[in-house]
């Protein structure tokens, strides 16, 4: 069976790749429908096989699979291999990634219908699916890094998909470089792992982790750092890049320049959660460093709260959802910091569905509005596009954690977990995620009301031609709405408190907050009822209520509020100044430094003084010495006599002494 399974794993990875290659290289030949068929079939195969593998592992109890496919290279006694680790964590990711990707492939037929780069787009998103699968199915750090950078490449390609747009090609370069800053840390982390564990294989590394818990490493002066802290923080810097945590979050809002399907697939549902997945995968390492966990907790809670605020002032429908994604990624990161890895993964799964849904709903609105993204020019759309309206509503209530929806279970679990956590920073994190609930509800329903309700703010002409999106758009919306509503109820029991992850995720006894919560867990009904005793639910309701007041009941309130607190609004408009700072200090500073090194270092000093200076001085000296060779016999005769006199003088001097 196991050999048989290996072929299935290979098929899961390779079928999207083959689809991508065919659509990419022979796009002209097979035409538009050829391109979408071949890629959709590729992803569908991957998705169905992933579900089969999921069933095989989660229901039929197949053992974890861990084996190499081939040796990438071996050097210095270390084998770098490409291989698969199939366990509850990876099968969960496989199903989420391939299923969301599948839906988005279908949706793309509608969204990119008139785009000249149709085949190219399908090729890219299938390539992305391949890269993401390589990342989640990896059994070693090298392949993880491969997938990590490969998804970054596809993200770069897709953000800059409309390469004529200046903003798009600015955003994709920015995304790639900011991610590279994260990867810089990530690679150092991997290097540290290799040095101390002498292997890059997950299992071999995890098996030694306990034994190296007390190892220290000297970096600055002679202060000894815990090795685990250094490794974990380095790895987490990689996660901060990919999962857009403050201060490396700056690329994600700009990435909205790309077409909406990829905002849904890459920049909401899958790629940006790679960091969360990675930390969960590395739980045996992270559990050994409380410093790193606190660091994660604090970074995550800053992201969760402060990125949420920014969602309140955006008028671009996609950017609101983008900031909401940042904030939700912050929630997942907080869960990681609180050692509630399972809760982070749980939120990752539910979020993948409802956030993809929200993006696709936003995209549906955008295509019908002829690529208008400004919510100030929308309103009242519920009359024209009922399916989009309902599905967007489902996505929104799931996002804000309305009792009973998927998002409710996963988010509540995170808040509870942080509440129980004892590590440094957990109190701050608790209040951050708690206030985040109100903010989330406020910006979500601001979006919902501004887009679908209130007065119609577009011009008459546009309003007349509005209609519901085609079936290729509404079907994926409806399909994604189902898990957004009900998946949480099914998963919470096994995933958080049950045996879902088996031994895959390791939590130290003293950090095990989920176990503590689980001891009171008595089924989803009681969990839901119990939630009414706690503030999050009321905060969510309050958020909806305030949004209703401001955007339906008294539409002139927002303007009034803004005029009262201009300076806060200004800070939020400027996004806390991160972009300007980076642009001035990092981008400008780097260019300035480069120019200085070039102009002064290379041109003036090395070339000017040494290289050409040498040439010049040879010229000068020779022009002086040249005069000796005058060609007159009496000059030479005189020189000979002079020389003779000197020699005799030296000789006499020598004799006398």
């Amino acid at each position, binding site marked *: 069976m196991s050999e048989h399974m290996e072929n299935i794993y290979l098929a899961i990875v390779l079928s999207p790749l083959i689809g991508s290659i065919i659509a990419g290289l022979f796009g002209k030949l097979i035409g538009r429908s050829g391109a979408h068929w071949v890629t959709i079939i590729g992803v569908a195969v991957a998705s169905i096989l992933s579900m089969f593998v999921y069933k095989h592992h989660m229901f039929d109890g197949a053992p974890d699979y861990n084996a190499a496919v081939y040796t990438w290279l*071996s050097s*210095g006694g270390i084998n770098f291999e490409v291989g698969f680790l199939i366990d509850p964590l990876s099968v969960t990711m496989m199903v989420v990634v391939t299923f969301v990707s599948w839906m988005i492939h279908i949706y793309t037929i509608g969204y990119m219908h008139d785009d000249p780069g149709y085949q190219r787009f399908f090729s890219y998103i299938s390539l992305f699916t391949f890269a993401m699968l390589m990342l989640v199915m990896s059994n070693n750090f090298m392949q993880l890094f491969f997938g990590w950078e*490969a998804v970054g490449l596809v993200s770069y390609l897709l953000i800059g998909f409309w*390469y004529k747009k200046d903003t798009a090609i600015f955003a994709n370069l920015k995304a790639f*470089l900011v991610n590279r800053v994260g990867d810089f840390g990530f*690679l*150092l982390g991997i290097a540290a792992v290799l040095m101390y564990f002498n292997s890059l294989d997950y299992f071999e590394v995890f098996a030694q982790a306990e034994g190296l818990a007390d190892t220290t490493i000297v970096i600055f002066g002679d202060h000894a750092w815990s090795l685990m802290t250094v490794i974990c923080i380095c790895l987490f810097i990689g996660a901060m890049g990919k999962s857009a945590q403050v201060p490396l979050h700056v690329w994600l809002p700009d990435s909205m320049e790309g077409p909406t399907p990829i905002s849904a697939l890459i920049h909401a549902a899958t790629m940006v959660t790679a960091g969360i997945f990675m930390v969960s995968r590395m739980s045996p390492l992270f559990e050994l460093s409380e410093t790193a966990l606190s660091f994660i907790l604090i970074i995550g809670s800053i992201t969760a709260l402060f990125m949420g605020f920014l969602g309140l002032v955006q008028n671009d429908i996609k950017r609101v959802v983008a900031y909401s994604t940042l904030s939700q990624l912050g929630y997942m990161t907080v869960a990681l910091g609180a050692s509630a890895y399972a809760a982070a993964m749980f939120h990752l799964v539910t979020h993948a569905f409802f956030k993809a849904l929200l993006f696709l709903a936003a995209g549906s609105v955008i295509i019908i509005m002829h690529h208008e993204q400004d919510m100030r020019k929308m309103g009242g759309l519920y009359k024209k596009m009922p399916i989009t309206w309902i599905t967007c509503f489902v996505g929104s209530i799931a996002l804000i954690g309305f009792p009973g929806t998927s998002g409710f279970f996963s988010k509540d679990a995170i808040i509870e977990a942080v509440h129980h956590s004892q590590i440094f920073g957990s109190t701050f994190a608790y209040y951050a995620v708690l206030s985040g609930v109100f903010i989330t509800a406020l910006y979500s329903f601001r979006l919902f009301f501004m887009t679908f309700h209130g007065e119609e703010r577009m011009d008459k002409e546009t309003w007349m031609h509005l209609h519901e999106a085609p079936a290729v758009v509404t079907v994926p919306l409806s399909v994604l709405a189902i898990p957004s509503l009900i998946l949480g109820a099914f998963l919470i029991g096994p995933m958080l408190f049950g045996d879902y992850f088996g031994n895959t995720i390791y939590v130290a006894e003293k950090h095990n907050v989920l176990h503590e919560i689980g001891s009171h867990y008595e089924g989803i009904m009681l969990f839901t009822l119990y939630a009414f005793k706690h503030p999050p639910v009321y905060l969510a309701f309050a958020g909806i209520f305030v949004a209703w007041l401001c955007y339906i009941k008294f539409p002139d309130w927002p303007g009034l509020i803004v005029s009262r607190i201009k300076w806060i609004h200004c800070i939020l408009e400027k996004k806390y100044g991160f972009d300007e700072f980076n642009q001035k200090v990092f981008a400008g500073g780097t260019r300035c430094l*480069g120019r200085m090194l070039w102009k002064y270092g290379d041109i003036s000093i090395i070339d000017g003084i*040494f290289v050409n200076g040498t040439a010049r001085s040879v010229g000068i000296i020779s022009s002086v010495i040249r005069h000796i060779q005058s060609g007159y016999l009496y000059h030479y005769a005189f020189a000979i006599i002079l020389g003779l006199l000197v020699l005799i003088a030296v000789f006499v001097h020598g004799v006398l002494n």
Partner: protein
Amino acid sequence: MTVSNLPILSMLIWTPIIGGIWTLIAGDRQEQTVKYFSLAVSILTFVFSVLLYLDFDNASASMQFVERVSWIKAFDIQYYLGVDGIALPLILLTCFTTILVVLAAWEVIEKHISYYMAAFLILTGLMNGVFVALDAILFYVFWEAMLIPMFIIIGIWGGPNRVYATIKFFLYTFLGSVFMLVAFLYLYAKAGSFEISAMHDVALTLQAQKLIFIAFFLAFAVKIPMWPVHTWLPDAHVEAPTGGSVILAAIMLKMGGYGFLRFSLPITPDASLHFDDFMIVLSLIAVVYIGFVALVQEDMKKLIAYSSISHMGFVTLGFFIPFTIVANTGETSGAIMGMEGAMMQMISHGFISAAMFLCVGVMYDRMHSRMIKDYGGVVNSMPYFAAFMLLFAMANSGLPGTSGFVGEFLVILSSFEASFWIAFFAAFTLILGAAYTLWMYKRVIFGDVTREEVAELTDINARETLILVLLAIVVLLFGVWPAPVFDVMHASVEQLINHSLQSKAF
């Protein structure tokens, strides 16, 4: 088929040289014949190199396919050839690149095509000679002779400022190699032979080793080039025709790296240990400083030239870091990884820099400008070209899955075993390499068409496509499966490291 009975190494040297001489004689009157003949010669040479590879014994660290004839009896100079796992990949790279260069010249070189082809064919033979020579004087002859065709290539087919560039190139590299010759003469006096292996074994005082190391350093550091003796390279590249830049970047820079491995480390191990911090610092300066300089270049060829210097920083880093790693960990495994990574970096950089220069050449042939500001929106008129260039740009930024990743990855991993900070500065390349390459790509390729000339560009033709496809295949193949390159060199690298760790001072 076995080649062990054939003088395969001599064939690798003399086939292209004789072919080159024939093209010289044939002259420009038979332009078509000359072109096809040159292509045939370059392919034949490549076939020889593949046969060599197929018959090569990976398990052995000793010299293989040895040929040995006395040449100048009076001075005990021999025509002594052999190949090991360090030279073999470089020979394959040389022969492969020659095919590309011949193809790249096809319709582009209008002036004296036969001389152009002759220069490159002869150059190929001489470069192969450098990699297989086992006699120091023979090595020196090939090493210096190589400068002549390159001098001619830049001097005749070069850009407007070619005279300055050729003189700078020639004097710079020549000055370095003169010191190497002096070192050879000294070593001859000590070892009683010009055989390189005898020089490896001769015991030397630390003082003597230091002086020899410095002499070698001057020759090889200029060639590779290391900061601060690198300024000839951007000038030479800018003025050289595309083919010249390709050979210069892909092969001639590697001569410096090869020299460090063949001469500096095994002949002066104690001095290498003594100077290793110095070498590491210079390497890191190359990676970081040159990375910043590359960022602000306005001329594409200059930018790629600077990027080459920065990438070569990884090569010298990988070569001189083993001592610290062994001192730190007490094992040679990390040291081997670093050195093999550096070797891989040389091979991979050969492909990638060749590809980048060819890409610039493709654009230059159409627009006659190398300036970034003259372009913008090339993707609109040349989409296929843009796709290829993206692949190579990504490879240049070290993306996993391309060959550019492998070497850098291994060198960074191993340098961590020497020191956190060495790895820290080396890893800067992740950010800087991506920044200078992709920023250039963005300004040249992406965006709306800014000028009429760009709108009228025609996409790559079949010949150009063939060249870029060949390169794309190797870049991806060695990115996904670099093992074959490593299998060839394990035995030789291991022996070299063990040899360099033995003190030979007395």
